[in-house]
């Protein structure tokens, strides 16, 4: 168990949903537009099916280890060494994602909100908030997500009804976009929209009903992903979307009901800020908690401060938006499927082999 305490099903579902919002509303639609063109919504459907099948198989194999997290599974598979390696890989991934998210957040906030504010102020103020969140504890973050998630769902449904008149179904054609092979072969690998689902491998021992939580979390993420893609690609046409790295914000700018309801994007900004806060807090908290577990650290709070400082400093290094996008693409599109699906699958397979080998040896010894 990486942290103490049990989590309710809805707390996990809400948190994973909130964490998914970050890639969905920021860069994932634009990357998809580059890769798949007009077939981006079809890609969202296809990647949902692929991710659904992969995670179903993965969770089926993992069901033997419901009371263990992925670090415990790694220990079963390859001893302490593999546990350390796995822990460090996960920490590295979480910290990298946190650094990119903070840099991206800083750039976007300066572009749309505080164009005159020095960028260090934005990063500093936000990382202090994240640090406070980390100090309060993970349970508090999971609870905060349960408050936020209903607003997110209402927001998405509201947006859907507000933008339905602007949806042009011809934007989804030609149906196979940039090519059939690009869509079905390349798209099978690009399942980073479901990256937050891998968090279940870390919190599995804290969940009361793993199967139900995993299933509902998947549907929650699918709801956000599919509705976001349907809206973005239904309203904005393909070639113009490839230049827009904050399409969801642009989408909210189109919403208005007469003269009374206008500038809805301010609500979007608020939800985005809270979702980023949850994403960063969970990323940094888990990084420290994993280190605490693998190195048996007793007082980890000072490490939370250090981790926040590291994220802040590294995010200050990534000041070019082009570099941020490149890193985001490498990490989210190419690395994340390896880490969220392939690596856990290998670990579970090794652990199963080891278990069956041990069982055989035990049986042999008994006989």
């Amino acid at each position, binding site marked *: 168990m990486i942290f103490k305490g049990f989590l309710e099903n809805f707390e996990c579902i809400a948190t994973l949903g909130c964490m998914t919002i970050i890639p969905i509303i920021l860069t994932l639609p634009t990357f998809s537009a580059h890769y798949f063109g007009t077939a981006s919504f079809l890609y969202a459907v296809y990647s949902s099916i692929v991710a659904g099948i992969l995670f179903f198989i993965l969770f089926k194999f993992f069901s033997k280890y419901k009371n263990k997290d992925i670090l415990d599974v790694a220990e079963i598979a390859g001893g302490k060494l593999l546990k350390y390696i796995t822990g460090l890989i996960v920490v590295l991934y979480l910290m990298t994602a946190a650094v990119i998210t903070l840099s991206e957040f800083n750039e976007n906030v300066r572009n749309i909100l505080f164009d005159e504010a020095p960028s260090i102020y934005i990063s500093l103020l936000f990382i202090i908030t994240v640090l406070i969140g980390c100090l309060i504890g993970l349970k508090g973050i999971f609870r905060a997500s349960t408050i936020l998630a209903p607003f997110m769902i209402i927001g998405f449904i509201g947006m859907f009804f507000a933008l339905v008149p602007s949806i042009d179904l011809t934007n989804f*054609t*030609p149906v196979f*976009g*940039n*090519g*059939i092979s690009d869509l079905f072969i390349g798209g099978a690998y690009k399942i980073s929209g479901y990256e937050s689902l891998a968090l279940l491998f870390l919190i599995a021992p804290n969940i009361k009903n793993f199967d139900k939580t995993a299933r509902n979390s998947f549907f929650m993420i699918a709801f956000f992903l599919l509705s976001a893609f349907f809206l973005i690609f239904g309203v904005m046409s393909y*070639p*113009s979307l490839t230049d827009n790295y904050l399409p969801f914000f642009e989408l909210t*700018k*189109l919403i208005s009901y007469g003269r009374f309801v206008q500038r809805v994007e301010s609500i979007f900004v608020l939800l985005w800020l809270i979702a980023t806060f949850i994403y960063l807090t969970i990323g940094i908290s888990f990084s420290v908690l994993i280190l605490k577990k693998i190195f048996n650290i007793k007082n980890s709070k000072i490490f939370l401060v250090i981790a926040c400082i590291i994220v802040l400093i590294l995010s200050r290094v990534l000041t070019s938006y082009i570099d941020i996008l490149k890193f985001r693409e490498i990490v989210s599109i190419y690395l994340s499927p390896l880490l969220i699906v392939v690596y856990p699958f290998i670990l579970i397979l090794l652990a199963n082999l080891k278990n069956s080998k041990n069982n055989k040896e035990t049986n042999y010894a008994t006989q």
Partner: protein
Amino acid sequence: MQHNKSFKLILLLLLSLFLTTGCYNKKELDNLAYVIGIGADIGSGDNLDITYQIAIPLKVSSNEGKTGEENFTTYTVSAPSLYVGNSKVNALTSKEVNLSHVKLIVYSEELAKNDLSGHINSLISNVSIRPKTTVAICKNSAKDFLKNITPDLESSPARYYELLFSSQNRTNESAKSELIDFYTATTSIERDSAIILLSNKKSGDDSDTSKKSGNSNDSQNSEQNSTGSSSEGQSSQGSSSSQGDKENSQKKFAGLAVFKGSKMVGEIPQDLIMSHLILTNELKQGDITVYDAKEDGKLASIFLRQEKKCKYDVTMKNDIPEINIKIKLTGHLRSSTSTTDYLDKENKNILTSNIEKEIKTLVEKYIQLTQSYNTDTAGIGRYVKQEFLTWDEFEKLKWNEQYKNARFNINVDVDLNVSRIIFHRISNI
């Protein structure tokens, strides 16, 4: 003990938030100059003459019952871009320019014929400017248009623009002309854009006022400011002209400006706007006049509504698209100058046929005109691309070059309703 420490730390950090924030970049509402219209004309050298129409909120709120002509002021600056222009206006005015309430962006025809791509890119990437802001082309000088506009029936100029440029919801005399649509069309390979064309020529005034004012700007190469707009307009009108006449003569919709990419290549006359609205499924309501079913020289006036979207069937024949367009409209006979009984089925059918022929002729004229410019302003390419499986295949068709060769079959079906009409037939004695 541990909790107590954490609490103190959190409290300290929370307090630090208030200490680290400053108010050096605070923005007081009273200190902002709200721009409601931006105009751009070709200036000297690489510069543009950018005109800012700025609302005077104090006058708007205190001018109850009065017209909006004194509720704004205009500033014209010579600058290479909007951002530099903003900076120059900031130096001219006591307040800081704010673009979040811009309702109209107007370019001169001369500038539009050069290229608008750079300007549109800077507008669309400006976070303050709404994507649904109206973009229009002015046949003369954009500066003169913004200076001379007189919102007679509305005291708030911003509200005046909002109502004026949403008139496509109640008439077929204008069309939707939003910044986001214009940008999307200019970056697209499946359609071109058509945006509102405005004219501010005064009746009987054939001289090119834009050039005159533009030249004076160039020669001075300095900023100009004029409060109100109507002084020149009123003097040119004479005391006998009514308010309505004044408004009509100073600015009017003059059709649509047709763009190929980001360059203006032609115009669609006012009488063909209805065809544009029909083909883009935007006809909310409109009126059409056709000849009477029985009596020569008599006219019938019909109110039209587009309740169903046009149906586009595309077939490719030797790489040339053949497009069947089915137009379905609902009509109500509003009035007739004849004594024909339209409750009679035969008369009604003849009138329906006349309406269908008239609409078909208008739509064919529109398509012929746009084919002559080779610009798909109705966005028919969106339906053509449905016939292709991949983007590459569609790109190979080169729709923006093929449009002029496409063959169209127009089928108009009008469902005419005459039940509501009340006949007051006066027979000729």
